[in-house]
């Protein structure tokens, strides 16, 4: 076991995968010599050579399009989109191509690619370094969507994603890269070295895509979250002194519906939390599923806590970010109903 930040965990996942399988290649903007603007690929070019880890031209459609072509040949590209906010030029390749190659060729061709992309806000990145576009992926049939909340999961899930036979959108909450951020931006950041989930095996292991994890057992209300919001939810629950059950989805698609249904059936109340905007966000899907599967057990309407339906502002970041205060108020609302 080693202590790792989320950056180191992600890097280790690629390292282990490249070591085991010559077909794994890694590329993206600034990914080669420099090792990525968040340093996630640092050292990989030196170790595996510049034909397995290299810089790409600034063309997201080119990066994803060539990754699809490499996958068709038989490689397993794990590419970096510098920020999730920059995946849009590649959206055509992702939605019309990567997602459907298996289906339209009836398995003649497949697309085992991974698109890693830093997601979410909390770094004063303004509207083009803060977005959470996961719902734009979950709405597309044929993609898997993974959002880890800690180094241990990040490594195991990234290895599973690289080994997966289908395209995986791997969203890395950038605010969690260096420590578990609970939304209290005015307090010092705890490093991952002080958190049990910062303890990561050095070798190969994988975590199945599609299994949620219960981060806190409880009986009063179920909180469904993923990524950064898992830590925000845990903080809010402690501060409110509510016996909540907190589910970390880890994978949005496929979704671990059983864990959700079991929990809400037990608690009878549910709060859904994400940083992305509200309208047509992934929370809408979660809320609908809870309603469909747990209606007769519900004692209160399901409440969503999300980013506002506006672009992500720069200066008003902490009024936009759905922090522990907002989650706490939603918990209180659901408990009173």
């Amino acid at each position, binding site marked *: 076991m080693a202590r790792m930040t989320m950056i180191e965990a992600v890097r280790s996942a690629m390292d282990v995968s490249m070591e085991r399988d010559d077909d794994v290649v890694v590329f993206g903007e600034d990914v080669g010599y*420099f090792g990525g603007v968040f340093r996630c690929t640092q050292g990989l070019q030196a170790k595996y050579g510049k034909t397995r880890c290299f810089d790409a031209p600034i063309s997201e459609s080119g990066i994803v399009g060539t990754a699809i072509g490499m996958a068709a040949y038989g490689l397993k590209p794990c590419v970096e989109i510098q920020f999730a906010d920059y995946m*849009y030029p590649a959206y055509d390749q992702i939605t019309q191509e990567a997602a459907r190659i298996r289906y339209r060729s009836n398995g003649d061709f497949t697309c085992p690619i991974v698109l890693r992309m830093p997601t979410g806000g909390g770094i004063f990145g303004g*509207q083009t370094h803060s977005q959470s576009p996961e719902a734009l992926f979950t709405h597309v049939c044929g993609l898997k969507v993974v959002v880890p909340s800690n180094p241990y999961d990040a490594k195991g899930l990234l290895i599973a994603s690289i080994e997966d036979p289908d395209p995986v959108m791997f969203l890395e909450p950038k605010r969690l890269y260096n420590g578990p951020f609970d939304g209290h931006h005015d307090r010092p950041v705890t490093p991952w070295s002080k958190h049990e989930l910062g303890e990561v095996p050095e070798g190969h292991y994988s975590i199945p895509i599609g299994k949620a994890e219960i981060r806190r057992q409880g009986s009063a209300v179920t909180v469904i979250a993923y990524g950064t919001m898992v830590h925000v939810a845990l903080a809010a629950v402690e501060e409110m002194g509510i016996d909540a059950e907190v589910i970390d989805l880890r994978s949005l698609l496929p979704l671990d519906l059983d864990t959700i249904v079991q929990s809400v059936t037990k608690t009878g109340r549910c709060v859904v939390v994400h940083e992305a905007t509200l309208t047509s966000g992934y929370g809408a899907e979660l809320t609908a599923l809870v309603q469909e599967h747990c209606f007769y057990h519900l004692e209160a309407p399901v409440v969503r806590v999300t980013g506002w339906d506006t672009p992500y502002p*720069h200066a008003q970041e902490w009024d936009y970010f759905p922090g522990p205060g907002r989650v706490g108020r939603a918990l209180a609302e659901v408990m009173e109903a």
Partner: protein
Amino acid sequence: MTEFPQLSLHVPEPAVRPGGMPDFSNVDIAKAGSVPRPAVDAASEDIRDLAYSIIRVLNREGEAVGPWAGLLSDEELLTGLRHMMKLRAFDARMLMAQRQGKTSFYMQHLGEEAVSCAFRKALKKGDMNFPTYRQAGLLIADDYPMVEMMNQIFSNEKDPLRGRQLPIMYSSKEHGFFTISGNLATQYVQAVGWAMASAIKNDTKIAAAWIGDGSTAESDFHSALVFASTYKAPVILNIVNNQWAISTFQGIARGGSGTFAARGLGFGIPALRVDGNDYLAVYAVSLWATERARRNLGPTLIEYVTYRVGGHSSSDDPSAYRPKTESEAWPLGDPVLRLKKHLIVRGVWSEERHVQAEAEILDEVIQAQKEAETHGTLHAGGKPSVRDIFEGVYAEMPPHIRRQRQKAGY
């Protein structure tokens, strides 16, 4: 068995990496004054050479030579020098403010001041730029108030963009400066559309598109060239080749093409390559291109050959990917020092006056900063309102956003 050898992947590499000796011997630099100045109605195929050479006016001795010289008066050149010095002083102060936590982020122009400052001079009121984050000289040289720029950088209560945008992502229709996007290359093609609109309406205004070397790899760059070429749009397609795109050297975006300018030739767009650190050359080439556009002769592509002396942004440390002394070895020198030298050679400037001007300009910048700071900085003093998050998404606020604003307590 095949008669052919095994294939191998070609991945371009810069000439030198950290630890090595900076080397620009591969950069072929034409002698100042040696490149001809064609008529503005020249056909692209007749001036192909201009996409491979470098148009230069100022020689090593500081003299203005050749067919592209002689366009600017002493007075105009002195003003040009002041603009570049102001941009440089502004950048230095704002980078320092960023380090002091007064703003979250900053991007400077160090070494590239001539490009946007001299280009602005070739534009007229009503023309429109679609800039990237590295063309603040367009504002400075158009006398946009520095205090306004700082208000935006500080996201304070007087921020014209109400705290919504990252620092330096200015917007000013009045000053012909389209709102900056953070997403690269998207605006290059929009500039073409703006120019097409001016032609559709039989107007006289022209547009200027801006992009960095690295960003020319985006599809939008290529779309822009197709549209500009097809409709002969009155647009200047500017490429600022400062050798680097964050840590990626220009060879990754350029690939096997000889130069970025040469990209225009396949589209039949006249393409010029110019010394981006030579204020006189930048102005002369910009004027040539704007004249073409104004005479309805269509687009021109210009590659400015320059060097990004500083980090990519306040978050970047270039010593991780290029030799520390690389900027000193850059063969085209420093734009401010070169114009200064020229003005001294012309006999209208001196070392003493330069030092004095530096002090005056610094004072002006400091005064502006003092004023801006009375309206707040990112984490202190006056701020934009939380209401500003919700306003301006639509012309009229829809009910769901109103409900969310109320929920936020505003």
